[in-house]
């Protein structure tokens, strides 16, 4: 059984005159780490809301097709039920925060899972450490900087260790190093807890080397689906308006000039290695 199965799914928000997403089909297996990207307004957040049941239980509208999460038909499963295995970090972290301190914010979700006090304390300490917000623990979420708030939102969701983690533009307000740290953490969560993870993100130069699969959406539809190395070199990607990492553009340019780098590098380190390899081949 796939962790997420979407069949012919379309959704039109109430009062709206177009399908925010239409004819979506895809499957996600346990432990996959996928990136969903596409132009602003193309339906990424709408699709995310269909996984945790916000659509159709909170946002009403015209719903077609089927979205199944761990075998549960989302439209027939109450959100509190879905919340046991799907957690989402929202695009705007502030909408998610409500407690009087960072500690309480994180503990709240854990209490709801019915965990023991010891377990809660342990997870709290652990997540404060990994996300690097130990010094903010007694602070009020509303008095934090935008990026600090985003870190708190990420911490409180990760502490719940959901089977399925959905992150809607989780790094939009994070400094570059913090963004990379979050992506590294996702690899760890996948490895240690076989978490299935969906990340929506625009800055492909930061995330591409971390994901197995990239799903590209445009005007409510999935238009491309494949590995980063397959997807990033396609001319359509640029045409749609996706920000292709500069390394990819550089390799394309070099290829045009006759310098053929066979395997597409996704990080500066990989790039230097490829250039070295090219030079070595050259000297034979």
């Amino acid at each position: 059984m796939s962790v997420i199965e979407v069949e012919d799914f379309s959704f039109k928000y109430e009062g709206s005159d177009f399908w925010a997403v239409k004819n979506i089909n895809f499957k996600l297996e346990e432990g996959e780490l996928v990136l969903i990207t596409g132009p602003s307004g193309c339906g990424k957040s709408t699709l995310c809301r269909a996984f945790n049941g916000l659509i159709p239980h909170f946002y009403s509208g015209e719903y077609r097709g089927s979205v199944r999460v761990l075998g549960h038909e989302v439209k027939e499963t109450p959100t509190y039920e879905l919340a046991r295995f799907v957690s989402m970090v929202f695009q705007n972290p502030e909408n998610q925060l409500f407690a009087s301190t960072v500690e309480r914010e994180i503990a709240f979700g854990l209490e709801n899972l019915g965990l023991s006090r010891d377990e809660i304390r342990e997870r709290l300490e652990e997540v404060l450490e990994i996300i690097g917000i130990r010094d903010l623990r007694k602070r009020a979420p509303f008095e934090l900087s935008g990026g600090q708030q985003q870190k708190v939102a990420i911490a409180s969701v990760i502490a719940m260790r959901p089977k399925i983690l959905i992150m809607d533009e989780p790094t939009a307000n994070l400094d570059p190093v913090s963004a990379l740290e979050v992506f590294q953490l996702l690899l760890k969560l996948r490895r240690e807890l076989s978490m299935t993870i969906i990340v929506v993100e625009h800055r492909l130069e930061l995330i591409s080397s971390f994901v197995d699969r990239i799903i590209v959406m445009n005007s409510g539809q999935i238009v491309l689906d494949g590995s980063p190395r397959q997807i990033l070199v396609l001319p359509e990607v640029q045409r749609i308006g996706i920000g292709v990492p500069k390394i990819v553009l550089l390799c394309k340019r070099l290829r045009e000039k006759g310098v053929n780098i066979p395997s597409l590098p996704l990080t500066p380190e990989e790039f230097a290695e490829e250039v070295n390899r090219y030079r070595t081949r050259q000297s034979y």
Partner: protein
Amino acid sequence: MNGVNLSVRSGEKIAIMGENGAGKTTLIKHINGLLKPTRGEVKVLGYDTKKTPVSLLARHVGLVLQNPDHQLFAETVEEEIAFALRNFGYPDDIVKKRVEWALNVMDLARYRRTSPFLLSGGERKRVAIASILSYDPEIVIFDEPTTGQDYLQKQKIAQILNLLSLQGKTIIVVTHDIEFAAENFERIVVLSRGTIVADGRPEDVFSDIDAIRKARLLPPQITACAIELQKHYPQINVKTISVDGLCQQILKLVNPFLSS
């Protein structure tokens, strides 16, 4: 903020970068008078912000907040954009013209009668930007204008910044988007723990490993490639930012006989 000295000339376009909690938002809130310095002074167009009413500053300094939801409240996108204009007492025909202009420039015309709260995150951000641009302040400050924006929208925002710059406006942008900063700014100010740790041209700032590390930044991808390559090939210049610039150097490396 701790001992910050910064002067921005009229017509300059600068990016402010730095780690989460560095004080970027705090700094720019001092420029439109939302915050007043506890020590030292902030002068904007010659006005001392401590002695000048926020309402007066607001007319000259447009600030787009990091979280658009703190700024949006009207029932339709159109109303949202018209609000400040009406407030400043512009006549109806001007209001109408400016609103049309802003809707088009920010690619929002199809949402004119939609509630801002029903828009996607990136679209809401664009409404917030439109509502500031519409009243044409001399100094425009954007806190993270590119969040939620795809590459084309980012390009469009960059074009608008250029346009404003050509009109002689002073532009200050806070951003975590390294590629956006590297591509579009000639001056980058790096803030870390409330102090300025670097201030200069992108190629100098982004190759200043010390400042970069302090402020939890990364060099732009091309600069990072140049830094990696330079470990093997000392002739590579690490102050390279453009794809073309690095491409030329690599071509020389693999084919030393190649001229240009």
